[in-house]
């Protein structure tokens, strides 16, 4: 990992950041926290605040225009290429100018006026369609402002001429006596005629206004192609968004009086390219230094991307922590061990096959559904489609070993893969012979922990910590020595024999490796550090191995829960009566959801705590290049 340090003239910094963002090869270092180290030479670069406000304003205006056109920006299939003119400020000014030139505003105004005319007509109780025939066909001369003024006048007239009081007027007439009415009759007729005349004039006028505005709208629409406006708007939106991202990245920089100071992490293969980009974008108004990162610094790490079908396992590893520099990335190994541990706890041929089918269906769906258009849970399911398949396969395999088909139904006879000393690999039913299952779980746990220690060994070699290289080897000796003793003396219940008949073995398998661990860590880190570490090694070896007995516990629980539904359904000796199917369906759904989740989390925990604590600290930082999207 290279560290670029650059000093750029302030007018060119926008172009430099923009070009770096387009290339997407450099991670800009946040200098704000380190300003103290420079003792006042550098101050925070705050020039971007104004631009940020401008960007937000322009973006919201563009958004309003999109809405006026009745189009969502996301629906656009076209890709408008953003433009750039020197600094962010200049670019934003151009965006604003071009936005004002677009006829969108005028079109919006037209529809606004038309709807206002319609509202007025409704309030007046006039029919515009009838008045339309009488409306004059004068060409449109007035500006929008004049049209609006005219509308205001009409509205004012509406309230002064007494249209609004008409109801009051009618009510009052109703209260009059017949004599008074006949006296007033003539006058009333006059008023009525006057009002009707006024109404007709108004209607005519309104219709005229409406027609003229409509004509304008039509000509505008004819002259401009909506699609073109949309394309322009889209380009402007892209440009403003890009400048916004540039502004956000610039917040991390520091400045002197006239120059901007910039630091960035760049992978080795892109170092030269990035230097060129900075030089070119700043027209040479810059000083660039390309250094190797010093060993004391925490550099971000670029990992080889895992194969795409392991994406779910990658997420599981990285949500614990990113591998530290030079450490092994455990994703590929986890993709093997994770299904195995899951399969032991979830051993079942039938339910494993269901998992496999679910995985296949999800894989097919994943190709058809856009991941960003579905909810959280569905997205997680889609991402982990391949994981479901692997988990299902493993469950099927262990289902054959333990003779489980929708629980211990007796349909499948347990298949034995052999026997190592007291450890039986398959060939028994866990519910019938739980001790065999416990031994199997401890064996698997020791092997899993052993693989973690081997990885620790590789890590120490890679880091050239030669003083610590033997520690994982001694630890392996302790782990498998202890396992051998446990098996040899027939379990923990005969522990008294360990100290009597087996005292030599105890020294060779437990005391000696512990002493060696103590010596080698004391040699590297001092006596107290070594002592603390060896106590930790002893305690961890015991408690972590014991922790794997949950393989047995959860395996038994899985089997027992299924057994419950088999009994309720009346399944006996591998014979499934037709009436048992609804019960088994209910049981399977329950077990696969609740039990599946619990088993999954326990598998995860075995990896995160017992396995990762051997070799994966998760203290690394991922390399996230600044990239304009």
């Amino acid at each position, binding site marked *: 990992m290279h560290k670029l340090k650059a000093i750029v003239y302030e007018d060119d910094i926008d172009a430099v950041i923009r070009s770096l963002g387009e290339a997407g090869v450099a991670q800009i270092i946040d200098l704000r926290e380190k300003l103290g180290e420079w003792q006042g030479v550098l101050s925070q670069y705050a020039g971007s605040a104004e631009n940020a406000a401008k960007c937000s304003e322009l973006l919201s205006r563009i958004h309003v225009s999109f809405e006026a056109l009745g189009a969502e920006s996301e629906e656009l299939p076209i890709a408008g290429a953003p433009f750039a003119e020197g600094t962010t400020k200049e670019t934003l000014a151009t965006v604003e100018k071009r936005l004002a030139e677009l006829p969108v505003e005028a079109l919006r105004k037209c529809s606004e006026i038309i709807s206002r005319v319609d509202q007025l007509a409704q309030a007046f109780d006039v029919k515009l369609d009838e008045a339309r025939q009488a409306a004059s066909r004068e060409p449109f001369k007035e500006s929008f402002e004049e049209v609006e003024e005219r509308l205001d006048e009409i509205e004012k007239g509406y309230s002064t001429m007494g249209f609004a009081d008409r109801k009051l007027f009618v009510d009052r007439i109703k209260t009059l006596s017949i004599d008074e009415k006949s006296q007033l009759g003539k006058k009333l007729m006059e008023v009525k005629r006057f009002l009707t005349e006024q109404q007709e004039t108004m209607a005519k006028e309104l219709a005229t206004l409406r027609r003229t505005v409509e004509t304008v709208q039509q000509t505008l629409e004819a002259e401009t192609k909506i699609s073109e406006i949309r394309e322009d708007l889209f380009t402007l939106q892209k440009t403003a968004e890009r400048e916004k991202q540039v502004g956000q990245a610039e917040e991390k920089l520091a400045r002197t009086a006239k120059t901007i100071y910039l630091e960035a992490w760049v992978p080795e293969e892109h170092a030269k390219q990035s230097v060129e980009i900075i030089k070119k974008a700043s027209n040479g108004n810059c000083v660039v230094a390309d250094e190797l990162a010093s060993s004391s610094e925490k550099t971000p790490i670029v990992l080889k991307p895992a194969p795409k079908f392991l994406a779910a396992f990658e997420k599981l590893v990285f949500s614990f922590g990113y591998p530290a520099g030079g450490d092994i990335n455990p994703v590929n190994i986890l993709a093997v061990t994770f299904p195995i541990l899951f399969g032991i706890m979830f051993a079942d041929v039938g339910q494993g096959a269901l998992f496999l089918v679910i995985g296949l269906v999800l894989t097919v769906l994943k190709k058809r559904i856009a991941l960003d258009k579905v909810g959280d849970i569905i997205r997680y399911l889609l991402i982990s489609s391949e994981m479901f398949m692997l988990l299902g396969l493993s469950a099927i395999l262990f289902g054959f070993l333990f003779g489980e088909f929708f629980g211990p139904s007796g349909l499948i006879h347990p298949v034995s893969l052999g026997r190592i000393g007291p450890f039986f690999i398959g060939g028994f039913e866990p519910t019938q012979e739980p001790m065999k299952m416990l031994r199997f779980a401890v064996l698997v746990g020791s092997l899993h922990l052993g693989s973690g220690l081997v990885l620790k060994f590789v890590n120490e070699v890679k880091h050239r910590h030669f003083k610590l290289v033997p520690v994982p080897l001694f630890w392996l000796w302790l782990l498998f020595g202890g396992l051998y003793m446990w098996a040899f003396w027939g379990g923990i219940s005969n522990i008294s024999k360990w100290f009597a008949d087996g005292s030599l073995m105890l020294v060779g398998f437990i005391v000696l490796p512990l002493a060696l661990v103590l010596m080698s860590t004391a040699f590297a880190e001092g006596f107290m550090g070594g002592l603390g570490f060896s106590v930790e090694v002893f305690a961890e070896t015991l408690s972590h191995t014991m922790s794997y007995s949950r393989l047995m516990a959860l395996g038994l629980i899985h089997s027992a829960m299924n057994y419950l539904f088999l009994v309720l359904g009346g399944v006996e000796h591998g014979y499934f009566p037709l009436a048992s199917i609804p019960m088994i369906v209910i049981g399977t759904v329950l077990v696969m959801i609740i039990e599946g989740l*619990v088993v999954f*989390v326990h598998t995860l925990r075995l990896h995160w705590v017992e396995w990762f604590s051997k070799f994966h600290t998760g203290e690394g930082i991922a390399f996230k290049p600044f990239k304009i999207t």
Partner: protein
Amino acid sequence: MDPGLTSLVGITLAIGVPIISAAITIIICGNAMAGVGTEKPELLSRLIITVVLGEALAIYGLLIAFMLLSKLPSITTIEAAYKALISGAIIAVATGSAGAGISYCGTSLIGATAEKPETFSSNVIGVVLSEALAIYGLLIAFMIIGQI
């Protein structure tokens, strides 16, 4: 005491106490998770471990109760009945203490992760070690049942 009744008391302990401790753990951790979820929903997929480990306590109790239940016809002597009672009491105590540990460490883990997500990997150890306590109890209870 009657062997049948004594072992039934054991079964009651084995299923009752773990369920109560699982419920308390889920109530406490679920509450804290809901609070964090309103601010940082992207952390929930990691923090769900506290609730699920709490739920597992009930499952351990279920396992012991289930095994005792299957042994029930063969418990005829008072000695065997005491073994059943004791194994139920062991899993009850173990899951109770594991539940207390998960509730305390779990809420702290949830709060701390909301502030600083990078501390999750070290803080989660408190939760999972508390949960391991239940496993130790489970193993011993299991071995006692094996002797009935």
